[in-house]
């Protein structure tokens, strides 16, 4: 490679054991592998700001780190489910994106969202759904049902992966059995537990997926995120995405600024920057989710514009809902069911 450059940056790195420079910097704390490097380069060049990206792998880790503070993060990208917690605990700065220049580009649909009414704190990053990815060569039936997970047909038994997201799995199971999100109906919860315990032996694994596991036929079906499913289909057209008609979660990841942010102004610039349609399209081009900014479609690749993974078909549009973090008592019940399931 480039030995001198490498050695030089190695030295620079050792030198950087000292405190980080605080001027012209923006520190983004985002989900892993979720940030388009082209978007960052463009932002850096536009504003002459050096951006660092640091990954987290769960809302709870991000929350724990932000609560303790001291890590120099400016921007954080929590999911809709946990946004109310971040706001209630006073971790986020009220940057008023609703008064920013590019706010006019925001899809009105995403302005008065339950987790940040009127958008006083956050700007949409990407949104998507959790549904079914299934191999049509193995399974010819209707993909739009969570029966694929909970009462799997013979041909899928032993080939199903379930994401180990406790809340998503329980939400789907509760809706499948006719309940409401965060239910405390004990009779129903008992049925949920029994259904999950009965279904588990028919799953092959409970893991976060990657494309290889589908293309290499480790899995024929999975509980999966819409963008992940789209990326699979683009590599391997045998796979389709289904919206469970019994109910499925919609989620949105949101760009917010931490109260403890060392570089507040740069963080505001970033919030405004990503509400520009062309920049929002860059976000979507990478992770393959919709972004909530009007006009960004014009800058997207054709395979994104009509993708059924992104444009929810009308007949399933009202089957999905934004899920919220359940109350602590409910989380305790869920954790018990989850432990029972995996013991």
């Amino acid at each position, binding site marked *: 490679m480039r030995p001198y450059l490498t050695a030089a940056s190695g030295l620079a790195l050792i030198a950087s054991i000292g405190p980080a420079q605080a001027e012209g910097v923006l520190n983004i704390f985002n989900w892993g592998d979720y940030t388009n490097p082209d978007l960052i380069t463009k932002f850096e060049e536009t504003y002459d700001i050096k951006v660092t990206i640091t990954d987290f792998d769960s809302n709870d880790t991000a929350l724990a780190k932000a609560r303790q503070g001291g890590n120099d993060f400016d921007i954080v990208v929590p999911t809709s489910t946990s946004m109310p917690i971040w706001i209630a605990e006073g971790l986020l700065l009220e940057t008023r994106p609703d008064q920013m220049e590019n706010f006019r580009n925001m899809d009105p649909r995403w302005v008065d969202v339950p987790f940040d009414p009127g958008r006083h704190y956050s700007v949409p990053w990407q949104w998507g759904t959790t549904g079914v990815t299934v191999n049509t060569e193995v399974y010819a039936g209707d993909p739009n049902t969570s029966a694929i997970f909970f009462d799997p047909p013979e041909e899928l038994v032993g080939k199903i992966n379930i994401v180990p997201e406790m809340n998503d799995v329980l939400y789907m199971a509760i809706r499948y059995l006719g309940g409401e999100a965060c239910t405390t109906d004990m009779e129903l919860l008992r049925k949920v537990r029994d259904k999950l315990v009965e279904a588990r032996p028919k799953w092959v694994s409970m893991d976060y997926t990657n494309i290889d596991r589908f293309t*290499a036929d480790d899995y024929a079906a999975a509980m999966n995120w819409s963008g992940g499913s789209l990326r699979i289909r683009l590599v391997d057209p045998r796979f389709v995405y289904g919206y469970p008609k019994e109910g499925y979660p919609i989620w949105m990841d949101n760009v917010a600024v931490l109260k403890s942010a060392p570089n507040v102004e740069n963080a505001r610039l970033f919030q405004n920057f990503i509400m520009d349609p062309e920049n929002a399209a860059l976000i979507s081009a990478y992770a393959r989710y919709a972004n909530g900014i009007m006009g960004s479609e014009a800058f997207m690749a054709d395979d994104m514009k009509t993708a059924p993974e992104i444009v929810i078909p009308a007949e399933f549009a009202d089957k999905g809902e934004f899920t919220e973090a359940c109350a*602590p008592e409910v989380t305790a*019940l869920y954790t018990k069911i989850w432990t*029972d399931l995996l013991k």
Partner: protein
Amino acid sequence: MTQAQDIIRAAARRDIRNRWWLSAPALVIIFLAAIGPLFVVVLYSVMVKGDYGDVKYWQFSGQGWFEVLFERDMFDNTVSFADAHLSILWRSVKLAAITTIVTLILGFPTAYFIATRPRHRRDLWLFLITIPFWTNLLIRTFAIQEVFRNEGLLNVALMRTGLIDQPIQIMFTDFAILLGMGYVYLPLMVLPLYASLEKFDFRLAEAAADLYANSSRVLRRIIVPMVMPGIVAGSILVFVPSLGAYVTPRLLGGGKNLMLGNLIELQFGQGRNWPLGSALSISLTAIVMLSLLVYVRAASKTEARHG
């Protein structure tokens, strides 16, 4: 009391004092960056859990400890023994024990092989053992998966040669976990074994053989007792981390069964029950620490008997 005795005592005291100075750097580092912070966990274990993770500071409760051993049935509210936690503990201990035995069976001959190479070649072989581990754990695990998956190297090879006509499901089984764990932890066994085998005087074994001891006897009566410290060190290094392992079980085993590591992680993560997580980990530490002390005592006794 004679003067000579005084001098000997003073020398012994000085020796012990020097030994404390000598171990000070290790003790200080571990205190600052490992043990000290753990007092936080002890405190957390007796506080009230926060609504969304963390704890409510300075509100105390025994709930975390209660939940380690008992559970209130969510449906009929009766209190019973937390059998979920026990079965997870049992599964983890079993897996860690089998991993230790497998790595010992594979690692001992390997260390022996390295230790009997010509002197200048030994470090080379040692490096060869560690080279695969320069590759990140996750990548290594994915590489193992390439070998064992249904369309992987092994199954394809077996099918081409006609030994099987259906791929054998190895991925996402307990066997896959065991393979992966054995793979990941092998050097942790080989290196300490090698370190104590390397200085073993193989002339002893030759002498024994000359006295008509057969090779298994030589192994059992001479070599094994001599390298006991290495076996102890290796077993600890493999057993203890594999008790808390969670990447390998999840990626290769499919994550359908919780291990102790995952159970504790669940409480600090999605389960949002930090006091229970803290109490569980303190219990685990105590169990491991106690069994370790018993094990080391027993091992050094064996050593004394043979030595």
